[in-house]
């Protein structure tokens, strides 16, 4: 075990850059997913049938085909088909964005629908335009509803990043995998890796809980101090059902 940790210390720069790649893919993947969630989610709420239809097809397509296949398709198949080659990390960001964006679209749709109808009616009675209603009244309230589900999806996304290892993206998993094969310390290596991801997941959950708290405060809702430390999964895993 000492072998492993001395090797760990030696490899610190590689590990740091591996961690960086993992975080990069997580953050940019999540931002892409967030953007797509809103685009597809709002399209699904449109009055136009075409817009709803397109959103439905895209969402079902990226939910229905496995993330794993999407990633491989972007990495292996797309260069063959189009001649364009993306870097592995970009493949990851794109695949995560598309896949989790499709799930996020349902979150956006559900949250917007959960805003009480009276809010829509009050905004209409004040003669606000549809865009104005959505931007200033509906979305700020729906946003609070979305955060717990988004937290869930964010952690799922983080947990999917080791897939980058399979397309040689030099992420955290790749870095520790190298250490493992050099030292032969299988148990220690994977335990360390798991702990790393656990810490990352916990840190992200904490950040999202902070975000939720500030969003709630803006609505004048009191958020108990305890809620910061609440675990993400216990709250929303069950109610999300098949969210992922």
């Amino acid at each position: 075990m000492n072998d492993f940790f001395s090797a760990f210390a030696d490899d610190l720069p590689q590990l740091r850059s591996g961690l960086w790649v993992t975080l990069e893919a997580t953050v940019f993947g999540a931002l892409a997913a967030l953007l797509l969630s809103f685009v597809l989610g709002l399209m699904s709420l449109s009055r136009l049938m075409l817009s709803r239809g397109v959103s439905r097809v895209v969402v079902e397509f990226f939910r229905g085909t496995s993330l794993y296949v999407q990633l491989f398709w972007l990495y292996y198949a797309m260069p063959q088909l189009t001649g364009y080659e993306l870097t592995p990390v970009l493949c990851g960001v794109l695949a995560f964005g598309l896949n989790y964006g499709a799930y996020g679209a349902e979150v956006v749709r559900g949250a917007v629908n959960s805003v009480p109808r009276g809010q829509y009616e009050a905004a209409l009675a004040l003669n606000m335009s549809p865009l104005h209603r959505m931007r200033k009244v509906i979305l700020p309230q729906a946003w609070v509803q979305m955060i717990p589900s988004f937290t869930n999806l964010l952690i799922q996304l983080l947990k999917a990043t080791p897939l980058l290892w399979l397309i040689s993206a030099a992420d955290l998993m790749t870095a520790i995998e190298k250490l493992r094969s050099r030292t032969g310390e299988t148990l220690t290596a994977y335990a360390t890796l798991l702990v790393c991801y656990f810490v990352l997941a916990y840190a992200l959950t904490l950040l999202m809980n902070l975000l939720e708290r500030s969003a709630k405060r803006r609505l004048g809702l009191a958020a108990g101090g305890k809620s910061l430390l609440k675990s993400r999964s216990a709250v929303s895993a069950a109610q999300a059902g098949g969210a992922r």
Partner: protein
Amino acid sequence: MTKDFDWGAVGDAFPLLLDGFWTTLLATVFGTLVAAVLGLAIAVAGRAPSRLVTVPVKAVMEFIRSTPLIVQLVGAAALFTSVEPLTVGIVVLGVHYATYTSEVYRAGIDAVPKGQWEACRALSLTPRRTWQAVILPQAVRNVVPALGNYAISMFKETPFLAVITVHEMVFQARDYGTKHFVYTEVFTLAGLIFLVASYPTSLLMRKLEKRLGH
């Protein structure tokens, strides 16, 4: 650099992928079974009277749920080299998803009115009888759609098993692709097979959910 879509390769690879598909299905079915049974056990253990049981159970659940399935798979396969990869895969999938299904059961158990527990105590039923005859039959009824949804999620994550050399569909696709350098065709095909298999199932689950009034 670019190549035209090779329909010949599609026809060629299709039987191979279908072969892999059966392994995928097998892993999903048995993985779901493990998750369904183990999840229930975890949920019941979570209601144990002693914190010596509930706290460690909760901690382990939290840890498994917060760490990547793929690392768990690779780690388990490296540790249990003598066990067949497919078996390792099924167990790891099952355990990972059990941490989710246990929440579904927990919600179901929490939804059983408190009066039911009190009535059992009033009748001096043993804990075993209480669970078996009163609580579980009420708790489990509504969890079917949620379990179904997790089965679909698991189905879409079975390609992870390729990493530990289980010859499921994506493994076959990648294998064929590497040998013949026709990635586009095989991965497109694999994606479509996933879509065709999972979409109707998720529609079915949605219908079931509606019928059960969620």
